[in-house]
């Protein structure tokens, strides 16, 4: 049954405002059943606050929240359902397995809290441990579990009541790189297989790339960009997203020129793009599309920026070169190892960066 606001059959729908101290969080969420929604942002952006609002640990200053047709918050009527009356499961950053309970009893905890008696609760918990193939951990205490094992137990604990909403708070953050990959793969296989809505908050772009159906980028409590990972990567709207996606993003003023093209003034530099645009715009250039030269390149089809190498980081088969140009402009180029060697790039080398007008993305 859909609620009065329900343009969705089930799923999560919420418009929430939370103001406390310096933080002023504004969220607008529409998540269809089975989808995974990622809130991406740096620490202090309001991600954890968002999760606590959804969990019911915080009361919104304003707004409403609806899950599968049931209202959880509505400040116009004063409705606020406490966490125990919400169909939620949660995985915390550091697992937060209760240190005085065994893995099995940790998984059984939500059932016991809901009033289930010990024996059936443990039986159910054991089933979940089996499902994650960690039944041998049942009697272990959290102190004796590895990071990866802890997060698997924490995930079983979050799912044991089969919640309509699964909340994940940086579930990979405390894991080492290898374990992170394994757990990420398991989690990816698990999510989105049902009607359950998943909200994951993270500062890790890879989490978003792997899990997200839809991403919202949070900065200082506000959503600055929203879309699929693909959209985010191609058209970042903030330095933060651009950096995460590994894109060059510049802000400038566009002016139409003849032939369906435009000229964008970015500080002291004037770039030519094969697109129609007018007014304040973002300009995105993929680092792989930037070529580097020691001498001023010929040919008018290319944009040329003169700069100095500030950093050259070797990657698999390529080198990621950061340039500083006039007017504080920073540009990242990815060149092959071969050409990096030919150009003899190192810190302080003066170079010319060029890219085609057709390879610039211009958007508002």
């Amino acid at each position: 049954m859909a609620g009065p606001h329900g343009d969705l059959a089930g799923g999560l729908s919420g418009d929430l405002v939370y103001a406390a101290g310096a933080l002023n969080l504004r969220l607008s969420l529409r998540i269809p059943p089975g989808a995974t929604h990622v809130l991406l942002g740096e620490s202090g952006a309001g991600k954890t606050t968002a999760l606590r609002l959804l969990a019911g640990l915080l009361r919104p200053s304003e707004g409403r929240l609806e899950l599968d047709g049931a209202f959880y918050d509505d400040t116009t009527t004063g409705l606020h359902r406490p966490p125990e009356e919400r169909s939620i499961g949660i995985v915390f950053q550091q697992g937060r397995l209760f240190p005085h309970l065994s893995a099995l009893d940790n998984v059984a905890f939500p059932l016991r809290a809901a009033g289930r008696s010990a024996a059936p609760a443990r039986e159910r918990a054991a089933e979940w441990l089996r499902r994650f193939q960690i039944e041998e951990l049942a009697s272990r205490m959290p102190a004796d579990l590895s990071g990866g094992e802890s997060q698997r137990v924490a995930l079983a604990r979050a799912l044991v009541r089969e919640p309509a909403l699964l909340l994940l708070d940086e579930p990979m953050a405390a894991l080492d790189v290898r374990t992170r990959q394994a757990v990420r793969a398991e989690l990816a296989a698990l999510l989105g297989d049902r009607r359950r809505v998943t909200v994951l908050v993270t500062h890790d772009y890879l989490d978003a790339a792997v899990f997200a159906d839809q991403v919202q980028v949070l900065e200082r409590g506000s959503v600055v960009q929203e879309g699929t990972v693909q959209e985010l990567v191609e058209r970042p709207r903030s330095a933060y997203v651009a950096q995460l996606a590994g894109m060059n993003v510049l802000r400038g003023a566009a002016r139409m020129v003849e032939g369906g093209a435009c000229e964008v003034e970015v500080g002291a530099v004037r770039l030519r793009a094969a697109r129609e645009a007018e007014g304040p715009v973002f300009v995105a250039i993929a680092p792989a599309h930037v070529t580097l030269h020691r001498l001023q390149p010929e040919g008018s089809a290319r944009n040329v920026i003169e700069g100095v190498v500030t950093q050259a980081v070797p990657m698999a088969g390529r080198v990621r070169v950061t340039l500083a140009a006039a007017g504080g402009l920073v540009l990242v180029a990815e060149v092959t190892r071969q050409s990096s060697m030919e150009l003899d790039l190192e810190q302080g080398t003066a170079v010319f960066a060029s890219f085609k007008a057709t390879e610039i993305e211009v958007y508002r």
Partner: protein
Amino acid sequence: MKPLRAVLARFVVGIAFGIALAFLLLPLLALVLHTTPGDLVAGLRSPVVLDAIRLSLITTLGTLLLTLAFGLPAAWVLARWRVPGRGLIEAALALPMVLPPVVAGVALLVTVGARGTMGPALHAIGLRLPFTTLAVVLAQTFVAAPFFITSARAGFQALDPGWEEAARALGASRGYAFWRVVVPLTAPALVAGLGLTWARALGEFGATITFAGNLMGVTQTMPLAVFVTAESDLRSAITLAVLLLVLAFTVLAALRSAPLPARA
């Protein structure tokens, strides 16, 4: 000659330590040496001794229950709520710990005694406190409960609120989260507080004798019985004294060896 001075300094400090130790422990040792196992067993047959032991166990148990019932919520409020004037309240709550116990006894008399502030009101509902066993419990609680409240409050304060939140977000009501997560995770502080309160209540003398009197079998706890028998029946006095000594030492030793609060 730095090394020689250092050696001398060590020597002086060592001597001071030895004197301090001897001063504090010799009287206790003398107490134990002054008695034989036979004396102890004989002392345990005296009705004064038996009554005192029975009464002390009952009243200190009552004190523990009363302390838990009111001290646990008090400690929680002080640790987690935004209470105006918290510093003053905490100082006031610690007052009974440093007040001369006789003063505590007088304070109780003028509050709930027959002619005290609340005396007539209590009398009207048929409650006469002074010189009853209940008065002993009140005197002990008044003096000893702050030990528990202080320790429990510190334990609650040191606990990361994230644990309660985790429990709540996993579907626990406030009560369930408190009893199944907060209490187990702060158990060392709570147990330590209870141990101190019990030991203090067991040794309570001044407030008890002032407020509850000294009636054998009704208000004459072990310390009071030691005081009374010290003149007439030294063997009983020593039996009780040794018993008190052993009990107090056991509690303190157990608390010292208890594991430190978990910081997960």
